[in-house]
């Protein structure tokens, strides 16, 4: 297959077909549909408990035209290991992909993920990150960002929204030194396509982390799903990079950092946030921004925050950006 770089290079043969039950404007469906287009027919899919299994695989039908298996929530790294071992022994080359949510990856599935990454299993692990346990009705996960409302981080009289920052799953995966790990955005098409293609072509443990805006969970307008993903990158809430054989590389650098409020204001889950909390989130973002993109260019929104630039980002040692 020739190397894909743009939308026009993508195969038009849908392996994740219409008729699924996702909410209108579901970011996860956008990601899965395109990942499956690129992975193609020679793919075996494992989906743990998640929105995806519910919307795509309800007996007696499925939206996946490929082989499909579901069993439980926390075992994506393990079941895919077993499938791949069997297929290798049977002489099949099929890409074995696990399509897990952030809850199934950051939280309950972290152990099996770590096991598979450490053993360098020949599987593709995709984390579809909608920043919460959305299937069960919008509960907080380790991926939920600071300040966000969820049903388990309600906006109360005493405490408003989530008080912890998002867990850095990419750094955790990178610490296992896998052949390939990358973060993707559904709004950055060519970057998305190249990374899925690269992950497909490599051997060993591969990890793709996709931000997938969730209309009911983020309380956003269904038409804004892709725009919100774009703004996540432009504000630094999401960073596009890849870690290949131990080297981290930024794959897309925004021209200038937009204030985080540009991102927050489109989502009802942040509507309650007060200035102090927004400033705290912005400060955290500035530290992350300089880690990823360097500090030669002073970002006006960060210059206002004295500490931002000098704050030590917690995973500097693990991510060796080049």
């Amino acid at each position, binding site marked *: 297959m020739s190397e894909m770089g743009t939308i026009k290079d993508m195969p038009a043969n849908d392996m994740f077909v219409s008729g699924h039950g996702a909410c209108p404007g579901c970011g996860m469906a956008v990601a899965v549909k395109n990942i499956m287009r690129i992975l193609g027919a020679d793919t075996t899919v494992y989906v743990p408990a998640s929105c995806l299994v519910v919307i795509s695989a309800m007996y007696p039908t499925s939206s996946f035209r490929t082989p499909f298996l579901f069993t439980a929530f926390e075992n994506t790294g*393990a079941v895919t290991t*077993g499938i791949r071992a069997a297929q290798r022994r049977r002489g099949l080359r099929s890409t074995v992909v696990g399509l897990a949510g952030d809850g199934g990856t950051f939280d309950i599935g972290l152990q099996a993920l770590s096991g598979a990454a450490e053993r360098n299993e020949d599987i593709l692990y995709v984390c579809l990150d909608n920043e919460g346990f959305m299937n069960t009705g919008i509960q907080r996960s380790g991926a939920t960002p600071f300040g966000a409302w969820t049903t388990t981080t309600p906006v109360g009289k005493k405490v408003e929204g989530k008080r912890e920052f998002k867990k850095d799953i990419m750094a955790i995966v990178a610490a296992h030194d896998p052949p390939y790990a990358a973060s993707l955005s559904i709004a950055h098409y060519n970057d998305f396509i190249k990374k899925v293609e690269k992950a497909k072509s490599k051997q060993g443990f591969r990890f793709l982390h996709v931000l997938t805006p969730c209309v009911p969970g983020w309380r956003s307008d269904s038409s804004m799903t892709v725009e919100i993903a774009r703004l996540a990158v432009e504000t630094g809430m999401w960073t596009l990079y890849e870690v290949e054989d131990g080297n981290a590389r930024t794959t897309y650098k925004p021209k200038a950092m937009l204030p985080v409020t540009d991102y927050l204001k489109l989502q009802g889950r942040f509507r309650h946030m007060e200035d102090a909390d927004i400033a705290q989130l912005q400060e955290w973002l500035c530290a992350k921004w300089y880690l990823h993109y360097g500090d030669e260019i002073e970002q006006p929104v960060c210059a206002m925050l004295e500490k931002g630039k000098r704050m030590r980002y917690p995973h500097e040692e693990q991510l060796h950006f080049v």
Partner: protein
Amino acid sequence: MSVKVISGDHAVAYAAKLARTEVVPAFPITPQTLIVERLAEFINDGELDADFIPADSEHSAMSIAIGASAGGVRAFTATSSQGLALMHEMLYAVPQCRLPIVMANVNRSLGAAAGIWVEHNDSMAERDSGWLQVYVEDNQEALDATLMAFRLAEDRRVLLPVMVCLDGFILSHTVERVEVPGQEEVDRFLPRFEPCTVLDPAEPKLINPIVPPEYAMEMRYQLDRAVDRSREVIAEVDAGFGKAFGRSYGGLLDTYRLEDADFALLTLGTATGLARAAVDELRSEGKRAGLIKLRFMRPFPFQGLREKAEGLKALGVLDRSVSFNGGGPVYTEVAAALCNVPTIVTGHVAGIGGRDIAPDHMREMFALVERAARGERVRPVTWHGLRGEME
């Protein structure tokens, strides 16, 4: 065939090797470790062509086994106690997906007041999972039952996972004389694994999506029937094994000197051997004692038990585990099986937490059953070897 002096764990490992297991996911737990260590050695020495996958937990080990089995290869794993409990969630996926995984469970006590010693409460807690369960008496049976487990599990009429249960330390770490069959003999007995449903992009299958209420009940009844029908195949496999290797075990249950017995004890696991000696002793005293050896807890031999119990005035049931305030799980099952026959059923709890079941305990049990057979009132359930009077 070769004769070896090996532990129960190693006997199981030899069986898994002779079965040409292809994927062995494993996580260590005492007293199961000798099984997976030996298999790792076989694989690293090139004696077994299989993938040894060191899982991050028993939950993952069973998940890997599920992936491998659904991927179309023969999968074997082994565990014990807390490990089995951690697998609990995944155990339930296997029978309904009809994946013929074979697993050894080295029985060990579960939960607090924890120890590493034998008790059956770990595997008894999984008896409603849909797994077939066989309990073995000695190391030879451990090897033979494991080999038969593959044949049984993979039979197209069965397609169910099988758990081979062996008593921790009493078998796992005890060496005995064991006849290890040759590879060619085993190959004749156990054909190559032909999976029924495979995850293969050449012929895409949707396996285990979410199942709404319109379908799940029919699936569950189908599984119930499959577990029940496995009884016939168990008898057939046992007979076939006997023909091939000269040893057979009676299928679901076996008996010892039961023909004209007035009273008997029902045992499973290693306690059976001691009970045989007790029966001999009582017979030498002119007492009509007998023994039923329960091999399979699932499928449970409801019908077979009713037939065997005919003519028995009383049947005692030994449990090496407790179903709190109800005696032991085997007792309640046997009592249910015999609810419409006149035989009196008594429960006997012994050997809890690895406490040795001594010959005196065994004599005490038979004595109680004998009294019940004479029409005396005895406790429904008695704990043997307990310090302090029972309430």
